[in-house]
């Protein structure tokens, strides 16, 4: 059975890779299987994780037992989960003609909660910690930095400053302000270049993984 599974996986892997040549029936078949099976897979995962794992087990918790399986106490139900379940059911209101507008309530709830909950987190991680990390003594602690470290420190502070100037929207990028913004976008682009190379290398490991599967698990050429 495992042997058959490896052959099917190899067939579908080659089908997806065949897209590099051009769109073809083999790719279409692999794509349809991939999309269909993954959609079904995620439906099952989300059902067991959320509807059963969180809601059902939360509202109707099993009894607490000790290691020997003896009854210890009844589980404590979390009725707050019913609020979430009701909001989830309201989402289905859009299937009923005339009351579809009700499905906007849970959406508004989700978007509003997301904004509120993440406000503090984003502010602390994207602003506070970034600013704290950027404010550094240019010549090192006790003026003990080497020339390379000083250059590095100047690039960090100057690059962040110029990059931030680029993201000013309410002021025209002209004169000294515009020149600083231009330095900022250059810093950003150089960073992107370095990031591009780094990420391409990490993606190579994904390719190597598939090649390893084809030549190892499937063809047995790699031991």
């Amino acid at each position, binding site marked *: 059975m495992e042997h058959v599974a490896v052959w099917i996986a190899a067939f579908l892997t080659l089908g997806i890779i065949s*897209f590099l040549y*051009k*769109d073809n029936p083999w790719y*279409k078949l692999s*794509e349809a299987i*991939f*999309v*269909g*099976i*993954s*959609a079904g897979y*995620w439906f099952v995962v989300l059902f067991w994780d959320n509807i059963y794992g969180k809601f059902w087990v939360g509202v109707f918790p099993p009894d607490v037992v000790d290691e020997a399986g003896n009854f210890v106490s009844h589980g404590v139900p979390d009725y707050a989960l019913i609020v979430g379940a009701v909001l989830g059911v309201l*989402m289905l209101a*859009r299937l009923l003609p005339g009351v579809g507008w009700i*499905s*906007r309530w849970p*959406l508004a709830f*989700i*978007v509003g909660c*997301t*904004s509120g909950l*993440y*406000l*503090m987190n*984003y*502010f*602390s*991680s994207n*602003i*506070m*910690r970034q*600013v*704290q*990390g*950027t*404010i*550094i*003594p*240019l010549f090192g602690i*006790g003026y003990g930095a080497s020339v390379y470290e000083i250059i590095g420190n100047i690039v960090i*502070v100057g690059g*962040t*400053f110029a990059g*931030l*100037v680029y*993201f*000013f*929207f*309410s*002021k*025209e*990028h002209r004169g000294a302000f515009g020149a600083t913004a231009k330095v900022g976008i250059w810093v950003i*682009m150089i960073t*992107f*270049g370095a*990031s*591009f190379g780094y*990420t391409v290398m990490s*993606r190579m490991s*994904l390719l190597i993984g598939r090649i390893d599967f084809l030549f190892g698990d499937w063809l047995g050429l790699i031991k």
Partner: protein
Amino acid sequence: MQQEQSIAFKTGMLSICLFILLGLLYLPPESVAQQESSVPPGTAIPDSIQLKPPIHIEVKDTPDDAGGSVTIRWEEQPVLENAVIQKYRILRASVENSVPGEFIFVGEATNRATVFSDGSTDDDSTYVYKVEAVYELKVDDTTVVTTTVQSSVSDEVSSSAQWFNFQRINVFVGVVLLSFFILYYIYQAQSGKKLFIRKIAGLEAVDEAVGRATEMGKKIFYIPGTQDMDNVQTIAGVTILGRVAEIAAQYDTWLEVPVSRSLVLVTAKEIVKEAYSKVGRPDAFREDQVHYLTDDQFGYAAGIDGMVVRERPATIFYMGAFYAESLILAETGNSIGAIQISGTAMPSQLPFFVAACDYTLIGEELFAASAYLSREPKLLGSLKGQDVGKALILISLLVGTILETFHIWQFSSLFKVIGE
């Protein structure tokens, strides 16, 4: 005879009790603690080694937390000759009716530690603690033994949650300041004050991109990323979708939105439907314009790639949060010659979009896009308020770097965020 035995027994018991009581009175308070030993049988601990139990045990509810944690402190132990502390073991007992139950092990601290946080407490329970020092004794040149000495029992303590985390007051002040600027400029904008917003090339091209699709009689694809509605980038993406849908409806150009999340599906449908109604063309909206593919990241990418090469849209928008699928999508779109406008705040994916798309909204530009496209006073005011916040950050960077470079004051400590 029986009476004599009873008297003898009682006298014996009384003597034992008196002996124990006298012993307890004689010992210093710290030594009330038990001394448990794992010394091998037959190994005598030299009299010269006087092991000290941890003293001055302080227990209190861990401040500024969400409950479920108690902090235990003890005094640093004096250094002894021939005996070193390996670690401290923390023991806890629940208290019911002022009587402590059985002590259980809840964690251990290194030999240099004088504080431990027990993060496994129940807010409804009361506890007492003991700290056990684990000593390693050098009995002679060849024999090393391990023994433990427990502190006295601590005071009773309960954990509780606090409404406000005072350790993060700086974050609160920052958020209040930023909110004030945003609200102030929203008020200004709504009062009729004109707020300037600079040209953003990627957004200037939106009209042109939709127009191109109209001229060519081809579709527009709009990809709102692979994340759910709890991601701010997805929210920004579907907001821009509203404006794109309005233009597409005006031009009578077919807009298709394949999505990978059920909540994004519902939200995107609502937004596109509303956009069509807003420009007076509700009849032109079709439910299948916005459709679900799969939650799977690469399944979604494979599905879109197939649609792109088969249907050859004239314009493709990528607006939202993307991961490794970004280059797969953008490169396929590039290969069919579509005009592509992307926008994301994922730093690792931006290089791919910059390389493969005609226009890219970088990070903050994605969030500014909705204000830029709609020119609504509320959004413009918000953008201006954020810019004032950025100006404050720039000033902080300058002032802080000068102060820290010349060792005048550690300015960066103002931005230190404690805890998660």
